[in-house]
C-alpha cells in the first residue's frame, strides 16, 4: 500500500506529454526583463542604473528586508531601463531591462560540468551563500529559501522533505531535473540537510514516475546514506507542503501552522538543484527549467531558460502560438495563472507555460448545485466548499471563518470535481482574502 495524505484528493488526467523531452538550453534572448519582485516578500532594490554594463550573474537587485531575495542579471549586457513592465495580469511591476550581449560571466562562478560532492561549510555559511544567490522556492510559491532554512528559535527540525511529487498535470520540469541532474539534486539535498541539521531526509515522488524513483534511489546511497526515496500513491494535491508532510510522516500541520510546527522543512527538487549550484558552484539563480507544453503546440519542450526571457520567445522557440490557442497558463492547469498577455518575462517561480486550445479554454456553463457532496469528499483540507462558496456570495464572513475558510490551500479540487461546474474556488479565494483581512484588522485593533 503506497503512502498518500489522509483526506480528500482527486486524480486529474496526467497529460505529461513533454516527459520524454530532454532539457535543452534556450538560446539567449535579445532582451531580458528582470522583475524586482520574483518572490514572496518585499521587492528587492535596484542597484544599477540605466546605461550600466552588467555581467551574467551580477547582483542587480539587493534584498531589502528579511523576507526578500537578491536578483541577479541573467545575461551580459547594458541596462536599458530601470522602470516598470505590465505583468501577465495587467498590473505594473518594477523591473530592470537589459540588452543582451554574448555571455561574460562574473568571475568565481564554476561553469564546468563536473559534480562537486564535497561540502564542508557550516550551516550559517551555507545559508549565507543561498541568500546571496537569490534562491527561492522553485515549486511556485517562491518563498525565499534562506528564510525557510533559518529554523525559528524554540522550534526543532526533524525532517527534511524533498518535493519531487509534481502532482500538477502537464508539468515535467521537476521530473526532467531529477532524471538528468539527479546527482546534483541529491548533493543539494545533502547540503540542505547540513544547513538545517537534520538526519531524516525523505524524497517524495509519485508512483507515476517510476524511472525517477529508481534513478534517485540508485544514486542516493553513494551521495548520502540518510536520503530515503519514497514512492507515493498518485493523488492531487500531494505537492502541497502540508499534504506531502502528512503523506510521508503521518503528521498533520495544525490549522494555521507552518511545517516547522511538526518538525518538517519541505524543499522542491528544483530548489535543491539551485542550492547545489549556489553553494558548490557559486552560481546565482539566473535560469530555471520551464516546461513548454500543450496538445496543439508544434513541439513540447523542457527548456533551460534565463530569467527575464519573454514567454513569447519560449513559445516561438517551440513553433509559435497555434492558431487555435484559447488560453495560455503560467504554471500547471490546476493552480497556474492564466495569462492576459504573453510579452512577460519568465520568473523564478514559473515552472511551465501551458497552451490550451480554444475548445477546452472556456469553462462549462454553471448549473444548479445538486448537493452531490463531491467537493466535500475531494477537499484535501476537509472543508465544505459548497457551503463556503455560498457564504462568500452572501458575504457571511463570520460563518466562513467559523467553517475554516482560511485553511483553504486553493488547490482547485472542488471546482475540478463539481458536477455543476460551479466556480467554487473563485469565490472561496476571494472570501479567504477578505476573512484574513478581517482577522488582521481585529488583531491590529
Amino acid at each position, binding site marked *: 500500500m503506497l503512502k498518500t495524505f489522509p483526506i480528500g484528493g482527486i486524480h*486529474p488526467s496526467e497529460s505529461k506529454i513533454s516527459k520524454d523531452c530532454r532539457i535543452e538550453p534556450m538560446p539567449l534572448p535579445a532582451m531580458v526583463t528582470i522583475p524586482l519582485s520574483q518572490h514572496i516578500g518585499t521587492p528587492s532594490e535596484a542597484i544599477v542604473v540605466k546605461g550600466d554594463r552588467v555581467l551574467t550573474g551580477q547582483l542587480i537587485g539587493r534584498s531589502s528586508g528579511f523576507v526578500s531575495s537578491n536578483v541577479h542579471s541573467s545575461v551580459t549586457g547594458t541596462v536599458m531601463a530601470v522602470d516598470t513592465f505590465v505583468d501577465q495580469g495587467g498590473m505594473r511591476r518594477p523591473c530592470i531591462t537589459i540588452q543582451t550581449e554574448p555571455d561574460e560571466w562574473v568571475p568565481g562562478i564554476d561553469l564546468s560540468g563536473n559534480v562537486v560532492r564535497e561540502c564542508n561549510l557550516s550551516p550559517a555559511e551555507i545559508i549565507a551563500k543561498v541568500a546571496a544567490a537569490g534562491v527561492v522556492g522553485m515549486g511556485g510559491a517562491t518563498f525565499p529559501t534562506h528564510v525557510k532554512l533559518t529554523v525559528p528559535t524554540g522550534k526543532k527540525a526533524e525532517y527534511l522533505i524533498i518535493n519531487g511529487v509534481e502532482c500538477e498535470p502537464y508539468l515535467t520540469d521537476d521530473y526532467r531535473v531529477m532524471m538528468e541532474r539527479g546527482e546534483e539534486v541529491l548533493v543539494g539535498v545533502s547540503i540542505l540537510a547540513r544547513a538545517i541539521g537534520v538526519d531524516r531526509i525523505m524524497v517524495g515522488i509519485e508512483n507515476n514516475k517510476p524511472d525517477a524513483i529508481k534513478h534517485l534511489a540508485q544514486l542516493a546511497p553513494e551521495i548520502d546514506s540518510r536520503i530515503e526515496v519514497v514512492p507515493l500513491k498518485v493523488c492531487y494535491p500531494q505537492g502541497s507542503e502540508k499534504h506531502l508532510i502528512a503523506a510521508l510522516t503521518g503528521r498533520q500541520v495544525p490549522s494555521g501552522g507552518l511545517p516547522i510546527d511538526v518538525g518538517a522543512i519541505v524543499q522542491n527538487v528544483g530548489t535543491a538543484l539551485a542550492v547545489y549550484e549556489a553553494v558548490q558552484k557559486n552560481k546565482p539563480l539566473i535560469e530555471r527549467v520551464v516546461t513548454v507544453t500543450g496538445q496543439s503546440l508544434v513541439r513540447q519542450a523542457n527548456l533551460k531558460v534565463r530569467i527575464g526571457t519573454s514567454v513569447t520567445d519560449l513559445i516561438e522557440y517551440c513553433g509559435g502560438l497555434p492558431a487555435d490557442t484559447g488560453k495560455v497558463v503560467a504554471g500547471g492547469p490546476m493552480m497556474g495563472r492564466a495569462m492576459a498577455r504573453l510579452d512577460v518575462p519568465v520568473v523564478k517561480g514559473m515552472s511551465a507555460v501551458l497552451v490550451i486550445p480554444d475548445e477546452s479554454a472556456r469553462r462549462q456553463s454553471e448549473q444548479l448545485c445538486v448537493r*452531490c457532496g463531491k467537493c466535500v469528499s475531494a477537499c484535501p483540507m476537509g472543508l465544505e466548499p459548497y457551503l463556503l462558496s455560498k457564504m462568500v456570495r452572501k458575504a457571511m464572513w463570520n460563518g466562513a471563518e467559523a467553517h475554516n475558510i482560511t485553511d483553504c490551500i486553493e488547490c482547485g479540487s472542488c471546482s475540478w470535481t463539481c458536477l455543476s461546474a460551479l466556480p467554487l474556488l473563485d469565490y472561496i479565494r476571494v472570501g479567504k482574502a477578505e476573512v484574513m483581512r478581517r482577522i488582521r484588522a481585529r488583531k491590529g485593533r
Partner: protein
Amino acid sequence: MDKRLVVSPSPHVHGSLTTPRVMLDVVLALLPALAVSTWIFGWRVLGVTFVSVACCVVFEYLIQRFMLKGPLTISNWSAVVTGMLLAFNLPVSIPLWMVAVGALVAIGVGKMTFGGLGKNPFNPALVGRVFMLFSFPVAMTTFPQLADAATGATPLSAIKGALASGMTVHEALATVNWSYSDLLVGFKSGSFGEVSAIALVLGFVWLLVRRVITWHIPVYVLGTIIIFTGILWGVNPDAYMSPIFHILTGGALLGAIFMATDYVTSPMTHGGMLIYSIGIGVITVLIRIWGQYPEGMSFAILIMNSVVPLIDKYVRPRRFGAVRKAKA
C-alpha cells in the same frame, strides 16, 4: 496582440463528471433491472416505465416553462431518472392514468415546488410513490400472479401475514412457493423494479465503476438491516426471518442503491452518510417487523431525508490539521 486570450481563475481543467452524464449513468444502471422485469412480467413493464418517464419530463418542462419561468433543465436527465425510479416502485398492473398522477405529484410537489433540481428536500420519486400508496391503496398493492405462483402477495406481506397469524417461520415458509434463488433472480411478486436482486447489484457495480456514487450509503443501509434483523433472527429464529430474506425482498436493494443515494436528498459528509444510512436501515426494519405495512423502505428514506439538513449542519467533515495549535 491580435489574439484575445481567455483569462480565468484556476483550475483550468475540469473533471469529466457532469450532471447529465451522471444522470445518464443512473439510467443505464437501472436498465438491467428493467430488462429482467420485462422478461418476468411482460411488455406492460415498458409501457408503465415509458408513461412515467414521459409524464415526468413533460410536467417538468411545463412547470419550468410556464410557472417558474426559469431556465429549462430537462436536458440534464434528472426527470428521466425520477420517472424511472417512480415506475420501478409500481406494480405492473397499475392503471396508466394513476402513473400520470403519480408523476405529476413527484415532479410538481416533490421537486418543482422547492425550486427544482438541487433544492428538493425529499426524493421526488418516493414522494410520488407514497402519494400513490395512500391514494390508490388497492391498485398499489395488487400484484399480478406469476404464472406458477399461488398468490399475488409479495414475499414480505405473505410472510408477515403468516407470522401474524401465529405461525412459526418454518411453517410460514411452507406456505410460500418461492426459494431464495427465486428472490435473487426476481421470480417473486412486487413492484416491478425491485424484484431482481442480481440486476440491481449489477447496476450498483456500474455506478461504482463510473464513480457516480460511493459505496458508503448502500453498504451502510444494507449493513444496518443485516445487523438489526440478524440480531432478532439470532435471538429467536422461529419468530423472525433471516437477514438474507430481508435484503432480498421488498425495496431494500432498490432503495439502498438508487433512492437513498440520491445526491440532493442525502448528506454531504461521510459521517453524515453513516447516521443517515443507519436511520434508514433501523426504520425500515422497525416498520417491516412491527409496523402496519409490510415494507418500510420508502417511508424510512423519506423520514431520513427530512433529517438531512440537520445532519449537514452538525456533522462536519474530518478536517486536515484540526488539532489546535498549542498556545505559544
